[in-house]
């Protein structure tokens, strides 16, 4: 049931025929985990909170630094030195007080990934390390929770939606790539908003657009490139033998 304030707050999305009250109610009872509230996570968290996802867990082990402020728009100068999850919870709660926001001050590892994502309908990637992503990926496969991968650097970004048992997972690819290349702030915002949109579609029960597809955005030539990707039947994480 949506109350009077919610009908007003979400009016612009309730007007969308494919969305409406039914979808809004689904969002209201949903739980999403956002792993990492840096450049990607700040943007995806903001839009998922604004859209009315009822329960959002934000996970990060970092504190706010001056060098974060070119892209991590939930943090301001006055927040430098504070825990990111604490600041993000306060600001997101001011944006939409009806949302339950659970801050978790932790680094995602193989040991804690499963317990952190337990009970979520969707996990949204906002991390900045491959090993943490692989731990999260494996936990999502084990618990059959969709995982929306996003990664950025410089003027470019990538994204795919991993549906356990259906699509390739992150470990299928032996992925390689450098870190710490720097990034222009609009790129994580762009990729994170696509992740948030994909998350909304998953919560609504719609077919996700990037399941089994890899999106690459190049801000140098402004091209979106989308490629089909398939499972690695020998993948140690998501192969059928291990899933069953």
């Amino acid at each position: 049931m949506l109350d009077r304030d919610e009908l007003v707050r979400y009016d612009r999305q309730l007007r969308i025929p494919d969305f409406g009250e039914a979808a809004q109610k689904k969002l209201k009872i949903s739980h999403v985990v956002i792993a990492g509230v840096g450049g990607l996570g700040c943007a995806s968290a903001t839009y998922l909170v604004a859209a009315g996802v009822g329960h959002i867990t934000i996970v990060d082990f970092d504190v706010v630094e001056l060098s974060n402020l070119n892209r991590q728009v939930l943090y301001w100068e006055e927040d430098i030195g504070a825990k990111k999850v604490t600041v993000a919870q306060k600001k997101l709660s001011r944006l939409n007080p009806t949302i339950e926001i659970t801050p978790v001050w932790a680094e995602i590892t193989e040991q804690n990934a499963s317990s952190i994502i337990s009970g979520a309908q969707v996990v949204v990637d906002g991390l900045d390390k491959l090993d943490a992503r692989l731990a999260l990926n494996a936990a999502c496969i084990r618990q059959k929770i969709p995982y929306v991968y996003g990664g950025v650097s410089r003027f470019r970004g990538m994204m795919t939606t991993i549906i356990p048992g259906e699509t390739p997972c992150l470990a299928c690819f032996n992925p390689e790539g450098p870190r710490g290349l720097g990034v222009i702030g609009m790129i994580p915002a762009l990729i994170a908003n696509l992740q948030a949109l994909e998350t909304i579609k998953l919560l609504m029960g719609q077919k996700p657009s990037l399941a089994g597809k890899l999106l690459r955005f190049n801000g140098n030539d402004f091209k979106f490139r989308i490629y089909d990707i398939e499972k690695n039947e020998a993948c140690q994480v998501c192969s059928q033998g291990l899933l069953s």
Partner: protein
Amino acid sequence: MKAVITPGFSELIIIVNPAGKVTREGLLNINMPWLCAPWPEAREEGVCEAEVEGDTLRALLTTLAEAYKKAGVDFEPINPRTNDMDEDYDVLVNDKNYVTIPDGLNAKLKDGDRVKLKILWRWDG
């Protein structure tokens, strides 16, 4: 020169003028099917061949880009703006990064050289 191409997980493995039959060397499947777009038979056979005009690494990469363009796939490892490797890709010759070999992209390839063209993922957040 002849290039025998093996699409891998997130990469192409290319043997230049191989002396014998090229196999997939234990790579079980192809999970980026679009890598096979210019050579559909590679999906079944696992490997494919291309004829390259020129004998440099640059000539090889340019030939590959042209083949993908003809197949309607946007795959351009050499960035036309910088005339160097695009940052979405990396290339190794016999396991050495191209920046560490003499002449870089203009290095001449020899019979049996193994070129690995990798698609890079992005990890920053």
